[in-house]
């Protein structure tokens, strides 16, 4: 009798090792897991109307809408720093290059596969728009361009807007605009493309973003 019981226990233990137990698939929601409770089968619920999610309270209209008194802002609502521009460059590379291309000329890969070609960021019309315009296009889309409000958080959209100004500047920059101290790094044949120093100094950009430039900044050497 004992032995039989033991054999049964061993058999059960072995058999249970093959089972997937309850702890494997617990009755709880993990991200994007389907739901049998809600009609639309989503466990991720949309924000309830007339409520504000934690951390997304609109405190500064200039920051969240890019507008002040109904007009697009001409100055950045966030402090312009080197980190902001680098963040902008990084985000631009992720979200905008598929269509606008690395230099902003509008010849990204998706455009080469048949998407409508956007204008180059270098054209005068876009050089003259206030910086809030870029933010607005990203937040609401423009013509054939989709909006990026869901993919890019507000602060990152400002970083991209700041970087677009820099990108515009860089397209009309000559070697003479580069501070003498930074030139050797650019001219050496093995200057790594990624780590190359930003070609113009941050103060120029700061001015450019605040004032909305039409000319590349003057430099004396």
């Amino acid at each position, binding site marked *: 009798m004992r032995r039989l019981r033991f054999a049964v226990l061993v058999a059960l233990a072995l058999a249970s090792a093959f089972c997937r137990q309850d*702890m494997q698939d*617990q009755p709880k929601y993990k991200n994007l897991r389907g739901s049998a409770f809600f009609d639309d089968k989503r466990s991720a619920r949309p924000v309830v109307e007339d409520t504000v999610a934690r951390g997304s309270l609109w405190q500064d209209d200039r920051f969240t809408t890019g507008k002040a008194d109904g007009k697009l802002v001409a100055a950045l609502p966030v402090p312009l720093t080197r980190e902001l521009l680098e963040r902008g460059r990084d985000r631009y590379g992720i979200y905008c290059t598929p269509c606008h291309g690395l230099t902003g000329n509008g010849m990204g*890969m998706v455009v080469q596969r048949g998407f409508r070609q956007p204008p180059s960021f270098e054209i005068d019309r876009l050089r003259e728009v206030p910086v809030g315009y870029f933010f607005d296009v990203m937040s609401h889309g423009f013509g054939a361009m989709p909006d990026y409000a869901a*993919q890019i958080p507000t602060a990152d959209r400002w970083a991209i807007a700041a970087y677009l100004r820099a990108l515009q500047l860089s397209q009309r920059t000559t070697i003479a605009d580069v501070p003498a101290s930074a030139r050797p790094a650019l001219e050496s044949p093995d200057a790594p493309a990624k780590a190359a120093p930003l070609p113009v100094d941050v103060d120029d950009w700061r001015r450019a973003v605040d004032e909305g430039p039409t000319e590349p900044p003057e430099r004396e050497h």
Partner: protein
Amino acid sequence: MAQIFHRSTNTLSRVSVFGAVFFIAFLLWLFDAVNRSPYITQQGIARVQPVQFSHQHHVGAIGIDCRYCHTSVEKAAFANIPPTKTCMNCHAQIWNQSPELEPVRESWRTGRSIEWVKVYDLPDYVYFNHSIHVAKGVGCETCHGRIDRMPLVSQHPSLEMSWCLDCHRAPEKYIRPREDVFTMGYVPAGRQEEIGEKLKAEYHIRPTRELTDCWTCHR
């Protein structure tokens, strides 16, 4: 009375007592082998998806960054699967008649979700977090393989506990510079041991003791 068994059965029974040890060992081995086989772990098996979404096209050929779609991978535990809107960014205009994309357009029209089949699926009692791995220089490629060559995603590692631990015991063998976390086909610029040790110090990777504590992953 004549003997029922021939003398030779004596040897036979001795051999089978001896052989039983091997037989049981074989059964145990078989059990372990099945348990670790792709049949159980699902390693390397591509799932059938509602849309034939190809990373090979989108990442390999067009060069879209992972974060364009997997938006939260840098800042959250969950990497995020893109909503239909993300596909429509491009497919409202291009390939907008393709029958392959009909489920996407239908989802866009009706507001119903596309039901992707989960490929990487840890048991619910395991805690995993993408953001820490991305921040400390573990590449997508290290865990997910050459996604840019996969027409359909299949699971690259076994996802067994030993796989996680192999790295948590010696992260210097795998980590890469942060700029290269999203790069596919990364080749270390030098000897991995040296680079790994340097980065380990630079990124302040915690000691093995802490990374292999049970509560790191079971909490």
